[in-house]
């Protein structure tokens, strides 16, 4: 499969998140990274070093935008200033697709700066899908929504998380950024089988996949992006690739960021799964 309409029919290969501590290494060594994912909000500014560094990166590499504050699931209308700045950046980067999270995070103009979970209700399906369509129409590029890690479930939920995701993306006619680490984290926190989730996702809508590390506490897992990817998450990734075909894949490492080579080596572990898929079903081990 050479991409789909939700990622501009691109097969970007394996990328990593663009992070400031790696700039010097990237400019000096020009590592053979397939692509970088940028956090849109870090560049939705008027000038200065961040945009200059981004322009230098774009001279050499493909970049794809990933947002953390569009809050597709917020019940209220999106911030027009946010949308305007986002579109300016889209025009600058020419990102082939754009992703953000299936969550909410602001209310009455106050921002939590967190990826807060949604109740899996029909009202949330309708409102979230409408907002995704609005953003997609405004930006005029494909949008992919990412499943988030969560630590709470709502009394009012009427369906599973993957049923909710599927309903939203069908009604919004958008892509999915499938974060297999987030599936794993939520599966432990909410006691479901993560492979059920991976198997239920509409493969033809998966524009991109995220892998990442996390931190396990006594009673729950926190999505910290500060460790290598654990084997059960790679197993979920393997199954996702088996179902979706080769898909642009991105390793997230956002805290306690190691040297560039260590992050890149961790990301390249995905390449073993991106080879022609084996017919053998991967075996999931270690997940709750």
């Amino acid at each position, binding site marked *: 499969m050479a991409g789909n309409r939700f990622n501009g029919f691109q097969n970007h290969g394996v990328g990593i998140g663009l992070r400031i501590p790696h700039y010097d290494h990237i400019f000096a060594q020009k590592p053979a990274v397939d692509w970088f994912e940028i*956090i849109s909000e870090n560049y939705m500014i008027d000038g200065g*070093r961040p945009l200059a560094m981004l322009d230098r990166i774009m001279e050499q590499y493909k970049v794809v935008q990933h947002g953390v504050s569009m809050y597709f*699931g917020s019940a209220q209308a999106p911030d027009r200033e946010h949308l305007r700045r986002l579109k300016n950046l889209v025009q600058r980067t020419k990102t082939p697709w754009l992703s953000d999270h299936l969550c909410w995070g602001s209310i009455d103009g106050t921002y939590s*700066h967190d990826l807060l979970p949604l109740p899996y*209700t029909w009202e949330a399906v309708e409102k979230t899908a409408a907002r995704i369509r609005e953003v997609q129409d405004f930006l005029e590029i494909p949008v992919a929504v990412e499943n988030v890690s969560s630590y709470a479930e709502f009394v*009012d939920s009427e369906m599973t998380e993957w049923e909710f995701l599927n309903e939203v993306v069908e009604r919004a006619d958008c892509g999915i950024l499938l974060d297999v680490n987030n599936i794993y984290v939520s599966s432990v926190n909410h006691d479901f089988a993560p492979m059920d989730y991976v198997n239920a996702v509409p493969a033809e809508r998966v524009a991109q996949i995220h892998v990442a590390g996390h931190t396990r506490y006594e009673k729950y897992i926190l999505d910290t992006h500060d460790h290598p990817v654990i084997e059960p998450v790679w197993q979920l990734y393997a199954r996702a690739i088996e179902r979706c075909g080769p898909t642009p894949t991105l390793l997230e490492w*956002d*805290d306690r960021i190691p040297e560039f080579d260590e992050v890149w080596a961790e990301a390249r572990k995905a390449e073993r799964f991106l080879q022609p898929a084996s017919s053998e079903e991967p075996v999931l081990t270690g997940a709750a």
Partner: protein
Amino acid sequence: MTSPMSLEQLQRTMGAAVMQPLTPEEQMQQCDTTGRFSGRAMADVAGEFIRPNSRLTSFERLEIYNRQYWFRIQSAFHEDFPGLRAVVGPERFETLMNAYLQAHPSRSFTLRNLGSKLLAWLTQNPQFAGSRLTLALDVVRVEWACIEAFDNEELAHLTATDVAALAGESRLALQPHVQLLALTYPADDLVLDMHQQQKRESSEAGTRSEDVDEAPFKPLRLRKRPTWLAVHRADLSLYYKRLSRPEFQMLSALRDGRTLAESLEAGFAGSRLSANTRLNLVREWFANWAELGWICKQQ
């Protein structure tokens, strides 16, 4: 059985709970302290919309988000105002920070703007700065100016031809990244050592910066000295440039949209300098400002 909350009601309820201040032990309050939930037990509030599981109660699940919210915005505030912390001390800084963030939670999609109201708030709430209010306010001015200068727009600056065509009625503008400050203390000396040139990045990691509480507190001594300062950007880096009072006054007048002639008058208001000295100074300033690219056409 209660009817389900609408999505908006649920988000308003959860938002209020998540943004409620933590206890001094950095845990969720046992009872509502904001009045939003009429002082009720937070376990009851959480139980109304969050399902428990076999390991965590509704309260404990909500508490994860409550802690994450505060840790994230506190980390951002720490990163933006290390100089203020050095002036007021770590304990007072924590109290000041939490009071400010409660009064002014983020109203922007970016944490970059978190401290935008700090100067006005601290001016109105001086008790949070202790005995070093004037210095604290100066440091806040410099630290906020750094944020503005770091990523504000850079417009096309005046060319030599533009400069040659200037007349007394010309109205000019300053680069948006040039921040002019009139200070009671040379607070830039203090801030310079503490600020990293590279700024915080947004991310989705649910982590807390580890160095927040590790910076050693050294009481700082600084003598009062009227200081006029420009915080600006050149070659993508931040710089502090000390200005003379007339230079500061003239730049401020230009920034405020006054004509060139009015700005000259404002610059030398009350000055005893001879006309010849003034002329030489203005030539020197303009040459310097042109080299730095500070002066633009009015938009």
